[in-house]
């Protein structure tokens, strides 16, 4: 049910912006909307930071709860779901903060705004780094993952995961890989169409997206080919 609603909302937003772009013949000047967009992003960032702190508190409370029998399984399931939510929200917040910082730098905003966005990036980084300590605290019997700054983090993550977790991760990665490739292809097509219609060249971003697509696919196919 939730999934369907997310799809409906996402499609509606995409449809709304696409129709506006088509109606205006791709001749939209984004500059007047930058301030409103930036404020919107900063409000979302603050709300998400609040939700993340809430999740952090809930995780600590769940960890400190003394439970036995089937209730222990129920609490473990809740901890697992909340850790996943924490991970998703902290990463999304980091991307939003980075987007806000990029906008302020590109549009030459006042130094105060740049500092605010830099602070949001720093907070997002701190919240992401807390994930590993939360994992260690709530799942003490599970193997410890090495630091995320580790050069071989991907392999370390796979080596501590058991068969069932790898099975779940594989399905998730496969789905996200396909979504990533499709979304980038659509973005390339959209940028090309936008460049032709508006005369505003997006060649650099088209080349960058193509390189990312080739690298991601190359890495995947070389990994399975050499096994």
């Amino acid at each position, binding site marked *: 049910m939730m999934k369907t609603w997310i799809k409906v909302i996402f499609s509606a937003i995409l449809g709304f912006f696409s129709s506006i772009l088509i109606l205006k013949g791709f001749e939209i000047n984004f500059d007047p909307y930058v301030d409103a967009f930036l404020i919107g992003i900063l409000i979302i960032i603050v709300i998400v930071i609040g939700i993340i702190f809430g999740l952090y508190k809930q995780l600590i409370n769940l960890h400190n709860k003394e439970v036995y029998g*089937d209730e*222990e399984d129920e609490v473990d*399931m809740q901890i*697992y779901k909340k850790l996943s939510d924490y991970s998703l929200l902290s990463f999304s917040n980091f991307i939003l903060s980075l987007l806000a910082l990029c906008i302020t730098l590109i549009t030459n905003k006042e130094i105060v705004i740049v500092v605010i966005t830099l602070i949001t990036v720093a907070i997002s980084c701190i919240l992401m780094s807390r994930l590993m300590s939360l994992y260690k605290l709530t799942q003490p019997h599970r193997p410890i993952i090495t630091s995320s700054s580790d050069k071989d983090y991907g392999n370390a993550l796979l080596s501590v995961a*058991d*068969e*069932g*977790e790898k*099975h*779940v991760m594989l399905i998730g990665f496969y789905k996200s890989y396909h979504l990533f490739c499709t979304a980038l292809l659509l973005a390339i097509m959209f940028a090309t169409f936008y460049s032709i219609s508006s005369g505003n060249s997006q060649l650099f971003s088209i080349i960058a997206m193509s390189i990312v697509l080739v690298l991601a696919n190359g890495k995947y196919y070389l990994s399975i080919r050499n096994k």
Partner: protein
Amino acid sequence: MKSRLKELRARDGLNQTQLAKLAKISRQTVSLIEREEFIPSLLIAVRIARIFNEPVESVFSIEEDE
């Protein structure tokens, strides 16, 4: 593949978390096996069977059409 995990857990008074700790796997994996969404490796199947003092073929069984 069918498993008697739930039944055997109830018999021995173990919850999923306790079984996972004994079998050195995650609770998610125990849950996936019970829901028949994942077929465990021989290593894990043997480990689980030993916890319940049962032969592997008594804990896990393959259906005819598989």
